[in-house]
């Protein structure tokens, strides 16, 4: 079984710890992981803003980087959703039959992390340890594009030491929405502020999601509000084991080396 | 070109820009079988109908055919005026027969008693097709209390069964509970323009 990890552009540039955690977790579960160096971005920012022509080269890059793998694991519901639901449209737009064919081969093999763990590896208890009060935001594209359902919360529930508390109105969008966050910044912030308030109401120490972009948005509001609530990617929680750091927060949040 | 020709031409050019074939369409699922008109509904269907009508805050009284006149008389006993349509087939002393009364005349009468065409159990709906005993549409609209007599044998299970039994050429009024609005802060108010009270009398044997 050849498995590739798609780091996603935002994971690669802004949240490398989430991708590193994905790699660590998969290796711990016995998967040999490859990271094709030619990969860049799924093209969703262009597609969702209406720049379909501009997305064509990105789709080309994607299929050439990931062709031949049995599974492509993505620590993002949004990027996985874009590949599965939008690459076909972009390829059709290009009028390139070979590209369309390549997309048909590649895109169904792309799975969001929790789908891969539960459906392909058949694991729910990944042997993680994370003794914190955690609440989970399920993210729209995971829920409604990919239909991952309760896979992420089943994975989290099986984590040792965790105190997983439900998030009120969990299924409502956080307001990120890609370029919506800047084109309609006021509405985006209003939605995010409500999401942040729900997060605070749970008393959780850590907000977990499976999309770095939603984390960046809600986390940015929590940080601005001095909420004292950490944001972490699902992979970071699942990757953490008892023998790895005291409580997982420092190790997982990662970028401590940057400013210290 | 007339508006008619232009609209039709626009439709056609939208649909067949280059004679592109429409996407294939799967055949619709089979429609559930409809009980024949003489097949009496089971008690559970009748009970569901009564329950669902009451759910919409209409009043429901169940009675036997022999008690019907008495039951209806007592419901309208206090009303200032009762109008009945031709063909009601029920003795109601003191009731006015709708003999092409004007809207203004109907507006001055408090209650109306009619029969119905169909009762729909799942939705708690009575359907009037304004045939014999059901009156013109305005007769069941202007008075404030509508007493509607439904025979248990007229009750069907759901909307599909009802459509199969109804004649689309006749004007119809489907009534599910009394007139209502939730337009002010979403707080439900019974009775805006239609009858503020609906009383369904469900008649068994």
């Amino acid at each position, binding site marked *: 079984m050849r498995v590739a990890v798609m*780091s996603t552009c935002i994971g690669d540039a802004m949240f490398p710890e989430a991708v590193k955690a994905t790699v660590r977790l998969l290796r711990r579960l016995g998967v040999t992981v490859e990271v094709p160096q030619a990969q860049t971005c799924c093209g969703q920012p262009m597609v969702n803003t209406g720049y379909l022509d501009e997305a064509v080269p990105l789709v080309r890059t994607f299929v050439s980087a990931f062709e031949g793998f049995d599974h492509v694991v993505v620590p993002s519901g949004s990027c996985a959703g874009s590949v599965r639901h939008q690459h076909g449209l972009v390829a059709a737009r290009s009028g390139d039959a070979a590209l369309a064919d390549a997309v048909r081969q590649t895109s169904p093999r792309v799975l969001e992390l929790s789908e891969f763990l539960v459906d392909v590896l058949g694991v729910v208890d990944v042997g993680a340890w994370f003794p914190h009060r955690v609440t989970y935001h399920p993210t729209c594209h995971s829920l409604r594009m990919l239909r991952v359902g309760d896979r992420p919360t089943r994975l989290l529930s099986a984590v040792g030491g965790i105190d997983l508390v439900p998030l009120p109105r969990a299924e409502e969008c956080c307001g990120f929405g890609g370029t919506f966050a800047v084109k309609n910044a006021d509405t985006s912030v209003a939605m995010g502020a409500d999401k942040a308030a729900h997060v605070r109401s749970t008393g959780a120490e850590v907000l977990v999601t499976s999309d770095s972009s939603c984390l960046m948005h809600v986390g940015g*509001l929590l940080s601005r509000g001095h909420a004292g609530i950490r944001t972490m990617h699902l992979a970071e929680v699942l990757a953490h084991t008892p023998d790895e750091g005291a409580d997982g927060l420092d190790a997982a*949040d990662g970028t401590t080396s940057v400013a210290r | 070109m007339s508006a008619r020709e232009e609209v039709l031409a626009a439709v056609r050019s939208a649909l067949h820009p280059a004679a592109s074939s429409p996407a294939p369409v799967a055949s619709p699922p089979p429609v559930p079988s409809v009980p024949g008109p003489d097949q009496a509904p089971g008690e559970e269907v009748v009970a569901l109908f009564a329950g669902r009508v009451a759910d919409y805050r209409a009043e429901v009284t169940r009675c036997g055919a022999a008690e019907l006149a008495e039951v209806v008389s007592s419901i309208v006993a206090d009303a200032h005026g009762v109008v009945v349509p031709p063909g009601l087939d029920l003795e109601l002393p003191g009731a006015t027969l709708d003999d092409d009364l004007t809207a203004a005349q109907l507006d001055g009468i408090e209650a109306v008693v009619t029969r119905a065409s169909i009762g729909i159990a799942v939705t708690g709906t009575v359907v009037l097709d304004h045939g014999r005993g059901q009156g013109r549409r305005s007769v069941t609209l202007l008075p404030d209390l509508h007493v509607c007599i439904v025979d248990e044998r007229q009750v069907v299970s759901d909307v599909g069964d009802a459509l199969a039994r109804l004649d689309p050429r006749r004007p119809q*009024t489907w009534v599910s509970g009394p007139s209502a609005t939730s337009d002010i802060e979403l707080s439900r108010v019974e009775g805006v323009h239609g009858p503020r009270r609906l009383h369904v009398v469900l008649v068994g044997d």
Partner: protein
Amino acid sequence: MPPFPTAARAALGDAQLRRNLAHATGTIRAKRAAVIDELEDWEGLRQRAARTKDETLAHLDEHLLTLEASLTARGATVHWARDAADACRVVADVARAHGIRDVVKVKSMATQEIQLNETLAEQGISAWETDLAELIVQLGDDLPSHILVPAIHRNRTEIRDIFRDRMGAVGRAAPDGLTDDPAVLAGAARLHLREKFLSTRMAVSGANFAVADTGTLVVVESEGNGRMCLTLPEVLVSVVGIEKVVPTWSDLESFLTLLPRSSTGERMNPYTSTWSGVAPGDGPQEVHVVLLDNGRTKALADDFARQALRCIRCSACLNVCPVYERVGGHTYGSVYPGPIGAILNPLLKGVGQDPATDALPYASTLCGACGDVCPVAIDIPGILVHLRGKVVDAHRGDGLPKAEAVAMKAAAWGLGSAARLGLGERLLGAAAGLWRGSRAGTTRPVITRLPWPGSHWTRARDLPVPPRESFRAWWRRTGRDGGAS
């Protein structure tokens, strides 16, 4: 109306509006969920309805001709309207032919779309809205903000004031000592409008459905004002969008099951009226039907977005939309607000002509909640993305490209190859050293202020400082060999 982002800013600051919307949409969402859970096969039902609409639209010309023939055979007069002007002219001509100066109206999206009331007013004909919420909107000289509950932005005290101050000028005044109890307010509307129903000789309606083979029009409502308008006047004109046609009477089953559950969260709305032309001795004896295009054939010509014409105006997508819930209906600048408005308006009007219409497909986070609740399974998020593409394409020839277009081209170039992306990340990592503004108490330093256009982000949100080392660089350094970080 300014484009969506600007209008949204004002709406977001209206505390009353925010509270009303949250209450209303939350209440209807819960009611809807409860009545949908009662049904065994909701998904099958919505797929069936979607299929019915698609098949009908695929042969729309034939169904319209059938409808015209059956309506005519049953004594109705059929008119065709290319646009709003055509449709308004028909209504005005019918009124004038009878010397009628007042008409009563059943709430209808189509007549709002064509701005019938305003056009009639210019010709000295008064159109009186009779739905309670529409009455509130009309008396308040206001605009509807929701498809189903148009006065959702008003509270009871505001409504009391509107009734007390305005009713008397246009008919029977509100009773003295009017309170803000909803039942009392509804009672005042009953008295005010009863006088109009009994005296007005002509009514204007829309229709929820038009059955082609029997010539039957269907109006679904709650208050009974529809029944009044459809029954008491002598003359009835119904303005019906050409997408409202369904082939047969039995096709109504799925729609009459889906619509009330999706819109008001009821198993069935209080009143449904059906009529097929003229019923001798019962109701209006002169019946007109106006078949309205007004951009619908434009939507029909879009193979993918055509499915938007399945819409049965239930407003379930508004009630579930997190954007609508915060900004309300006026922000969309159209009688069709919310997610359906964000696709319907650009489809009916065309894109690339005015900034307000072009902004609508972007008034969504693409969260997908609207598509999930749509009773006729319209892929609203998919159409939003599709229309964004059309908006961008419409401006590709512009002399001076927008900053966004330049940025997108640059981003696509930067992301086009791993080498370029890697270089960008190294620059970002180096630049990260400039942002030392670590916020006390968080492990990761954050950026609190960026110049435009980054200011759109940092005005209210912090941004983590980019890491010195990207994942890509880490992988090259160590990852391949086992991932010891």
